[in-house]
């Protein structure tokens, strides 16, 4: 019987799927602080500890800043480390995000994306992660619960690879995915253990052989340390592909750094990340049946940005629609629009790009909305100076 046939199908919330994967990944240390809508992850892990199903160290901390600080210390000893947060929690970690990546600690963090205060809001947008976009963490966006489960496992393998040694975040929209219950085909523990191996860092914090991590750099060296991180990010592109291939070998499941739907036959292609990708595909499918040539390019791996694949998939499109679930206030376009425009220009392509902002603070995007978003490109409403604020009450 293949692993896939043996897989147990269960109904899990996105947060539960993360906790289940972490339990199976032989994680040594979890330090986390609960925050809506990520709380279920921490609660589930605490339950696993209480029932003896998770044997790693669970450190209940007093804040997110402490959570990530504890993770950095634990990771320096060579332990496999996990944490999770959302919104204000991620913002509170901000300082330590740069320490984790600069110290090259392969920590894995689940981020149940939630918009930022003020005003106080609990619902989803990508503003939290986009605010930490340049912190040197690998960033993946999942679009359904099974992908959340699979990616959690993959992130450890990717981060801990000696060619990478960078922390990573697995992003999924708060409530929409964190609390949505979907079918997940669970994998067995053994193949996951084999797939992951154990972290083997070059240096470990050890009282018998004292080392100083992240010693002071000067204008003479700091630039080069940053360059090392940039190169590690570049390596992560290839290692990501390798990771997916190895994961597919025992699970039968593969997602890609990007997911292209009908980009070959489309005049208009929407570039989108997160759970809206599925919505846009449903809209595209219906429009294709009506004879409209539209396609969808889902960005799964956002950092490092798979520019080569994005350019290849957009080569035949006559116009491109970028969809940002975050607002870069005062910017000429949202972060995904900036990345896509820059990629197209770099590849010598010159299609018109319509930058669309949607779903801010949990504003819903329906399949009907998806059709309208495709319509925006047809109407040619793009502007050099701003984005279309789709779905906002004008």
């Amino acid at each position, binding site marked *: 019987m293949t692993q896939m046939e043996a897989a147990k199908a269960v109904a899990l919330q996105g947060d539960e799927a993360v906790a289940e994967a972490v339990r199976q990944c032989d994680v040594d240390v979890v330090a986390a602080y609960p925050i809506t809508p990520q709380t279920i992850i921490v609660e589930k892990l605490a339950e696993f500890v209480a029932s003896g199903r998770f044997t790693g160290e669970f450190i209940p901390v007093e804040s997110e800043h402490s959570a990530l600080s504890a993770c950095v210390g634990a990771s320096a000893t060579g332990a496999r480390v996990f944490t999770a947060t959302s919104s204000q929690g991620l913002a509170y970690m901000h300082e330590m995000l740069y320490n984790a990546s*600069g*110290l*090259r600690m392969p920590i894995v963090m689940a981020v149940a994306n939630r918009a930022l205060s003020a005003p106080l809001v609990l619902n989803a947008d990508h503003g939290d992660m986009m605010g930490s976009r340049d912190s040197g963490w690998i960033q993946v966006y999942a679009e359904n619960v099974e992908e959340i489960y699979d990616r959690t496992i993959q992130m450890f393998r990717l981060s801990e690879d000696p060619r990478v*040694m960078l922390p990573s975040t697995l992003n999924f929209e708060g409530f929409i995915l964190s609390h949505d219950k979907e079918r997940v085909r669970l994998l067995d523990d053994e193949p996951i253990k084999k797939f992951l191996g154990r972290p083997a860092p*070059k*240096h470990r914090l050890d009282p018998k052989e*004292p*080392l*100083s*991590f*992240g*010693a*002071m*750099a000067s204008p003479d*060296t700091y630039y*080069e*340390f940053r*360059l*090392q991180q940039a*190169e590690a990010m570049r390596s992560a592109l290839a290692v990501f592909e390798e990771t997916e291939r190895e994961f597919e070998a025992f699970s039968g499941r593969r997602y890609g750094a990007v997911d292209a739907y009908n980009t070959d036959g489309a005049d208009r292609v929407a570039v989108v990340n997160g759970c809206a990708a599925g919505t846009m595909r449903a809209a595209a499918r219906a429009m294709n049946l009506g004879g409209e040539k539209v396609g969808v390019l889902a960005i799964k791996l956002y950092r490092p940005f798979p520019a080569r694949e994005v350019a290849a998939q957009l080569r035949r499109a006559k116009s491109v629609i970028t969809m940002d679930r975050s607002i870069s206030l005062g910017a000429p376009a949202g972060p995904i629009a900036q990345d896509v425009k820059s990629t197209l220009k770099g590849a010598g392509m010159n299609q018109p790009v319509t930058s669309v902002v949607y779903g801010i603070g949990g504003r819903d995007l329906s399949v009907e909305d998806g059709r309208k978003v495709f319509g925006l490109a047809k109407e040619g409403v793009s502007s050099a100076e701003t984005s279309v604020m789709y779905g906002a009450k004008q």
Partner: protein
Amino acid sequence: MSWKELEEAAVVKGGTSSAYVVSGWRVRKPVIDEAKCTNCLICWIFCPEPAIVRHEGAKVTIDYDHCKGCGICETECPLKAISMVMEP
């Protein structure tokens, strides 16, 4: 040095900072009156730097390369055996 040669994450052997002189900004320096000092080690406990040095069979001395002149030792000394003196 090329980025390829640098040790990733700036990992270095522990204890290397003792080789650096980090006292250049000191304005006043602590001076111990050996006659008053009983070697109680309270200054050694309170000093936020490794600037109070203990000795086998002798009283504490000050490592002026690592003393930043904060004056905590002067405040904490119960016998008023330490006084802060202006640097020349």
